[in-house]
């Protein structure tokens, strides 16, 4: 069983990457965690050729939610949005240095990825 309160996870949560709203995002999306009511918003900058050029996020959450959103934010900028849509639980676990998240914290781990992917889908639906 992974220790979910390891020092590097706590540190990512305390000083998260890409925290803060973007002034003029291409698209924004918000998602909530149905198990606790945490809400995250992601502002995405997407180029004409479908690359995520920047990301900013806001909202509050538990350590896992914040740390996962932090490492995700640090990893997905510069990726093609189609590639981001194909990311899953294993990718976030790997970025966070976890073997496998416990079922009770799966939603916390994936809230950030869900909100980024929701923003990309909104963007694609508008095009």
């Amino acid at each position, binding site marked *: *069983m992974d*220790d*979910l*309160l*390891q*020092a590097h996870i*706590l*540190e990512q949560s*305390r000083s998260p990457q890409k925290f803060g709203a973007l002034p003029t995002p291409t698209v924004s999306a918000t998602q909530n965690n149905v*198990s*606790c*009511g*945490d809400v995250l918003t992601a502002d995405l900058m997407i180029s004409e050729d479908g690359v995520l050029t920047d990301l900013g996020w806001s909202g*509050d*959450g*538990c*350590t*896992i939610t914040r740390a996962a959103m932090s490492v995700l934010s640090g990893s997905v900028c510069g990726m093609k949005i189609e590639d981001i849509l194909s990311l899953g639980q294993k990718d976030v676990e790997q970025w966070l240095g976890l073997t496998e998240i416990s079922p009770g*914290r799966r939603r*916390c781990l994936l809230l950030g990825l869900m909100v980024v992917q929701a923003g990309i889908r909104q963007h694609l639906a508008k095009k």
Partner: protein
Amino acid sequence: MLDSIKILQDFPILATKPRGKSLIYLDSAATSQKPRQVIEAITQYYQQHNANVHRGVHALSDISTTEWEAARQEIASFFGARPSELIITRNTTEAINGVVYGWAESALQAGDIIVTTILEHHANFVPWQQLVKRKGLELKVVEIDEYGRLKQDQLLEWVADPRCKLLALTHVSNTLGTLVPLETLIPAVREANDHIKIMVDGAQSAPHMPIHFASLDADFFACSGHKLLGPMGVGVLLVRESLLADNSMKPWLFGGGMISEVTLEETTFHPDAADRFTAGTPDVASVVGLAAACRYLRVLGMQNVFEHDQELVQYALDKLVTVPEVQLLGPTQPINSEQKLDRIGSASFIYQGVHAHDVAQALDSQGVAVRSGHHCTMPLHVTHGWTATLRASFHVYSTKTDIDALIAGLSYVRQVFSTGTSNG
């Protein structure tokens, strides 16, 4: 007075170590653990008595039917109800939905008012909210004061409206532990409105205090077997007999077992309510298991169970209030010096500065299992600005030592989140 040492020996799961540490189970409001007497009753049913009920004339079917009927008798008696008033469901949620589809769909009309409360679990809120949308009714939600107690003046004012046809309210809040004083409130509601029906969600009261349906004077009472030491998958819906007799409460599931006669054109339903509301093969083993749980609690004595709970609740509140980061939620003091604390089953709180899931995670690493989240009371949480809260809840096997372990665990939370180091 309960014999804690003897009781602990009845619950094999409490000797397990799911995290490699002794299990301190403080999540009984989510589901209780099961004594070996219940586990053995279910095993014995499948090993010796299993056959379909009311279906065959062979010996095993007779044995199974006898078990089923005896179990129904035991459960009804436990709740001070007649067996004919007992409808077996899967859980509290299904029981409440049964009242929606079996009674309210035909009894309530556009313009009628349902009064409920902000304390409700989603199980006693969402079904009414959705019914209100379907049928053009009005839903009024009674507020609470700063201590988590219902604003009874507001409730009584609203139910006095002749358009109010139903009061749907919890007996004990699953989030705040608030005990709603039904013994005084229900007579006052009846005084204000003589045609109102009253639906009580007893999911969190039935496990901890004596329930006597006949004296309670509610029309419907719902609870879950799995919270009162019984198996998952079996719930209880008690319905006032007159509502069954005049067919105000109708079957909402149709099929085998619940009929009297079926022709190509028409079906008449079984005259006995017990059969009319049992469509298809029931979960006999779970009902037998729940009856064993009722027997177990009856031997302990529900008044003793209640007093044990009250001792633990008070002890938990007294200990938690000494933790500087803890903000207690719900009633923490009696209304006045002449009354007892109106709180049952749990102590809920916020740990300032640390998300509830993180607190629960750190406690779990110490072997302490508590609940974190919105506890299926999102309207209550949003109204009060809480994202997620923590709840330590108890049952007959809980001890003061468990609460001491919770308090020690909260010291560990402080260590992790102030220094950023954990030791697993």
